[in-house]
Each structure stands twice: as C-alpha cells, then as structure tokens.
C-alpha cells in the first residue's frame, strides 16, 4: 500500500461525497428533510476533506475544521435519527447529543489534541450503531408492510450502520496503531476510507430511491 494509492482512494471518497451532495440538493424544495440533512452532512464531509488537503501545507497538524465538521455531522445525524424515529425519543437523543458535544470538545482541547480524535470516533460509532439498530427495530414494529428498499432512510441507516460497525474496532485501536503499528497505519487508513466509500455508495442508493419516489409518487414506499 503506497501513499499515492491511499490518496487516490481518498480522492474517490471525496468525489462520491460531492456526488451525494449534488444528488441530495436536486429538486431541493421537493426533497424530504432526511435527504437534505444527508446532503448537508456530505457537504460538511467534503469541506473537511478540503481542509485535510490544504491545512497541513500551511503547517497545521491538528485538523480543527475536520473536528468541527465531525461534531456537526454527529449533530446532523442525531437530528436525522430523531426525525426518523418521529420525535418520540427527542429528549434522549438531545441529551446524548449534548453529552457527546461536550465530551468531544473537551477531548479536543484537553485530552487527545491530535489529528485523529479516536475517543470521539469510538463514542459516535457506538451511538450510531445503537441508533441504527433501534431505528430498524422501530421500523419493524411501526411499519411492518413498508417496502424497505424504497425507503431512503433505510439506505441511509444501512450506510451509517455498516460504516460505524466496520470502523469501531479500528477506532478502539487507533492509539495503538499510531504508536506501535505505524508501519501498517496506511493500510488501516485505506480500509477506513474504503468503509467511507461503501457508506457513500449505500447512501447514494437511498438518494436515488428518493428521487425515484419524487418522480413517480404512485410508486412511493407506502404499504401495499
């Protein structure tokens, strides 16, 4: 694994993120709020990628815009799940969100102070895995006859679950990887980006389904 191939995969990831932004913002006024939130998250991800490209050139090792983007993406995804769960768990999600934000800012200012704040990633991965499973559980109970594959939120949730499940162990061992297995770090970094690409691709299916639902409302995912 070379740095060139890593950068190439990283660029592919950024392109996919940009594509998702475009797909989310087509026919903006007609799109569901979930789709707009996903578009916003992808846009923040894209801006964070740009920051990652350019900030080290100016002599800054700690990617502050990236960390801010991660916190904002966390808040957006929490809001997304709150809407998907029809505001039934608003209080719990709000408290989780506030606690995470405080912990993430504290971690950034006083604890890890690194380019990769793995503690934040561990916490967000666990939270999103639990939220995704809970969303699927509610989906089974509340909407038993819904056509899942036509539901954009199903794909968004699938993408988020796969990404966070795939990167959880990597986040847990990030410190060890940086300090001990630094020779293999590029390999693990590439794996992380591949997981991102998978997430973007799955989210893209959801965005495409949403566009299809807009174009032919008669085939919307409602119960048969």
């Amino acid at each position: 694994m070379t740095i060139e191939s890593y950068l190439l995969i990283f660029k592919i990831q950024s392109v996919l993120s940009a594509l998702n932004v475009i797909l989310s913002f087509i026919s903006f006024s007609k799109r569901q709020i979930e789709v707009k939130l996903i578009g916003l998250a992808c846009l923040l991800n894209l801006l964070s990628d740009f920051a990652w490209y350019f900030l080290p050139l100016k002599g800054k090792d700690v990617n502050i815009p990236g960390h801010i983007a991660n916190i904002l993406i966390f808040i957006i995804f929490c809001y997304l799940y709150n809407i998907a769960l029809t505001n039934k768990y608003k209080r719990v999600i709000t408290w989780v969100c506030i606690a995470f934000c405080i912990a993430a800012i504290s971690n950034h200012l006083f604890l890890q102070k690194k380019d990769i704040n793995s503690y934040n990633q561990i916490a967000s991965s666990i939270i999103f895995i639990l939220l995704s499973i809970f969303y699927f559980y509610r989906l089974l109970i509340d909407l038993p006859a819904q056509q899942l594959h036509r539901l954009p939120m199903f794909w968004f949730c699938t993408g988020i679950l796969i990404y966070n499940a795939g990167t959880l162990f990597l986040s847990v061992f990030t410190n060890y990887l940086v300090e001990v297995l630094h020779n293999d770090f590029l390999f693990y970094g590439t794996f992380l980006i591949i997981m991102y690409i998978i997430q973007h691709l799955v989210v893209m299916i959801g965005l495409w389904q949403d566009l299809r639902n807009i174009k032919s409302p008669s085939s919307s995912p409602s119960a048969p």
Partner: protein
Amino acid sequence: MAGPSEYQIALLITLGTVGMLLLAIAIILFMVFYQKKMIQEQFKRQQLELIYQQKMMEAALESQEQERRRLAGELHDSIGAMLSTIRVGIITIARQLPEPESLDQSKKMLDDTISSVRAISRELMPSTLEKFGFTPAVKELCERFQETSLLPIHCIEHGEVRSFEKSRELMLFRVVQELLNNALKHSKASVIEVSIEGGDALSVSVEDNGIGYDPDAIKNSAQNGKGLGLFNIENRARVLGGVIHFDKERSIGSKVTLVVPYEKV
C-alpha cells in the same frame, strides 16, 4: 508486524472488524427478509379476506334471491290464486244481479290488481330465466320494458351464448335488469340497445342515447342512497368474476359493458 503481541493485536482488529461487519450485514439482511415475509403474509391475509368477503357477498345475494323467489311464489300461488277466486266470485255474483254492469268497475280494478301481482311476481323471479335461460329472459325483459315505457328497446344477440349455472344466470340477469332500469329512469333516452355477445367470454352491454352520467360521481354519493344501484351492479359483477366497464368517453348517452369469462360462470 514485529512481535507476536503485535500480530495478535492486528488479528484482533481484523477479526473484530470482520465480526462487526458481519453482524451489521446480518441485521440488515434480517430486516429485509423479515419485511419480505411480513409483506407476503399481509398479501395472503388480504387474499383470504377478499375471498371471505366475496363468499359473504355471494351468500347475501343468494339469500336475497331466495327471499325474492319465496315472495314471488307467495304472490303468484297464494295472493294471485285468491284474487282469481274472488274474480270468479264477482263474475258469478254479477250474473245474478239485475244490473251486472254495476260490478264492471270493481272487476276492472281486480283485473288490474291481478296483472300487477303477476308483473311483480315475474319481476321478482323471472320464470323465463328458469325455463329457457339467460338470453330469452333478457329478450322478454326488453319486450316488457318496451311495453311499459313505450321506448324502443332493441335486444341484439351475437354469436353463440352458452348456458351456465342458474344462480349465475340470475345474477347476470339482475345486472341487466338494473342497468335497463337506470337507463329508463334517468337517461331520458329515445332508444336503448341491449347486446349480448357470446364467444370466448360472455359480454353484455346496455347502451342509450340519453343525457349520460358520471358513474364515479354517482358512486361517491352512495352514502345518500343514490348510487346503491351501481354499487349492487359492481358487487354482482365482482361475485361473477367479471369486469364492468363504464364508457366515459362518449359525448352522447351512456354505455355499460359487463364481460364475464365462461370459466367463471
């Protein structure tokens, strides 16, 4: 990877990541298959409900026909017979009176009543249908309506119309009866045409040159009791396994066609 501990950590990361990914994929697959199963079960349940509803409707229509048959029998055999006996009595009394003309008015009224009772009895249970089948019964119905309404009602038969189960024939006859009634009462037509077509499927259509109507609007007003006739027609068509088509493209009059595949009747 230098030492065994590093190798073990790498293995742990790999196994953990693969395990978590498999778990996530298993959850998603479970969701998809469970949902698919739920949809299939719901579809089956809907089918069963539909069959049940159809059977219920069939039973309701059957009991309605039985009741009509009983009423027709009572009217014809009991009241009709009694009225005929009274008529004979009046004629006998009239012969004994010095002025038999004084009973002419009563006799005429009695004759009208007997005719009415017969007509009601025939409408309730057409004997032609039971004796000769669907097409002759429809022809007789057209003739009868023509006599009472003085409108030209043409009954045209194309191809060979096969006979089928009596209860089904009766149901089909009721549809034609209702359609003709509607055309006479509401269409303000100057001519009505009933055509019966045999072939692969039985097709019956009632066409008029009247003012026409919007079946959807009438069906929507069914709550006021207005569209009950159309509702009954559709119910009967459904029980027969046929398709009813209201021609909405016409500029003049209306045309309603009922197509019933023979295998369904």
